[in-house]
């Protein structure tokens, strides 16, 4: 089995490790780096449970991305949204709106929300619903998740998001 030294920048920290070349980013996060907050749902790009943020803006499915393809990019997982023990406004909004039931979809939902708001700080309800197309939730029925995204958008200082060029670290 071919392996390769890989350097991944996750939540502002560089991690250097050796991994088989067929490692997906999701496996690298969960199995090599033990950052298990990012979830495996379907493994084929359909559920959004594995969503992470690239360079503060673009959401991608880590299950369909090779770890080597993420070298040189800034990866943010939901663990990186919390800074110095302080929850991110998006996380607070999800809690306050009751947008979490079993919680399996939540890490992906939060990262997708971060991407929606980084690209469009004041989305309409329609834009939020379309924006969440790629994230499945088996529990909540989506209403509260949509409300949480609206609340997060109200809570956040939009100029700050734009100035920092995205979300996360």
């Amino acid at each position: 089995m071919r392996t390769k030294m890989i350097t991944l920048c996750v939540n502002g920290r560089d991690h250097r490790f050796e991994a088989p070349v067929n490692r997906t980013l999701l496996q690298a996060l969960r199995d090599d780096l033990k950052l298990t907050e990012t979830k495996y749902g379907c493994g084929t790009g359909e559920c959004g449970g594995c969503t992470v943020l690239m360079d503060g803006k673009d959401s991608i499915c880590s299950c369909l991305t090779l770890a080597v393809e993420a070298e040189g990019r800034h990866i943010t997982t939901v663990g990186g949204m919390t800074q110095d023990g302080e929850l991110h406004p998006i996380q607070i909004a999800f809690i306050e709106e009751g947008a979490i039931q079993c919680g399996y979809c939540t890490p992906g939902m939060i990262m997708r929300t971060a991407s929606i708001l980084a690209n469009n700080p004041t989305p309409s309800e329609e834009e939020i619903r379309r924006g969440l197309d790629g994230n499945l939730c088996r529990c909540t029925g989506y209403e509260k998740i949509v409300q949480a995204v609206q609340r997060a958008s109200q809570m956040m200082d939009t100029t700050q998001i734009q100035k920092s060029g995205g979300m996360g670290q």
Partner: protein
Amino acid sequence: MSSRVLPQFDLLTPQSIPEAVAMLAQHQGQVSVLAGGTDMLVWNYIRKVKPAYLLRLSGLDDLDNVNYIPGEGLRIGAKAKVVQLLDNPDVAEKFPALFQAAETFATPQIRNMATVMGNVLRGSPAGDCSCAILALGGQVVLQGPEGERLVDIDDFWVAYGVTERKDDELAVELRIPEPTSTTRSAFIRMTRVHEDLAKLNVAVCLEINQNTCQQVRISMGCVGPILVRLKQTEKMLVGKQISDGLLQQLAASAQEEIAPIDDQRSTEEYRRQVAGVILKRVIEKAIGAH
């Protein structure tokens, strides 16, 4: 059903197009090109393919852009993602069929990952960007050991999943011709549920002058092993005034011209029934009648 682990393969990371072509030639038949991976990695998971090598495009510069060049048309680099079609105002304004295909395409995450070129190279009769590109017309630029060659999109797909590209060629660019002031285009697809692949898709590109159609290209997907142009139906439209009566005749002709099958997404009978209806709708959408 996906196995959680990808099969073993080795990675090739060329730093230039000539190096990529040399690697494709050296390992002919054993190497698959990896673009966004949204098809390629799924196929690996389900062991539909088991390549010894995956050739990554990450080391190649200058293939990232979607550029509109006045007087020439649209140029889409091999690494350009579907989302870039949505971010480009020229695509929305001048190539509506392609813009509309990108809008309905997959999910936001997949649109950030999937390339337009990958959609064309995959050679699926359900490809949404591919359907729009067939209607708009254009060429695929391939780089091989003997240099560059251009293949017309009309000749590019030869059988299900099979294209004109040779094993030692890399697809580098898509070219779509410049529209005129009288060009109109549109795309529609039907799915079982929103994030599913199409059970039928259709795109049309017309030259319209005072409600008279001067030229037209109609492409339809999921009605045969490859995307097809409805050439008989096109002929019925050229030189005619678009009217309700003509649209009825076109719908009937489209039903005759296609060869759909039953599969997991739909049935032959249903596809034949709705093909005419969605053809009418896409023409109306293109000319702004509704």
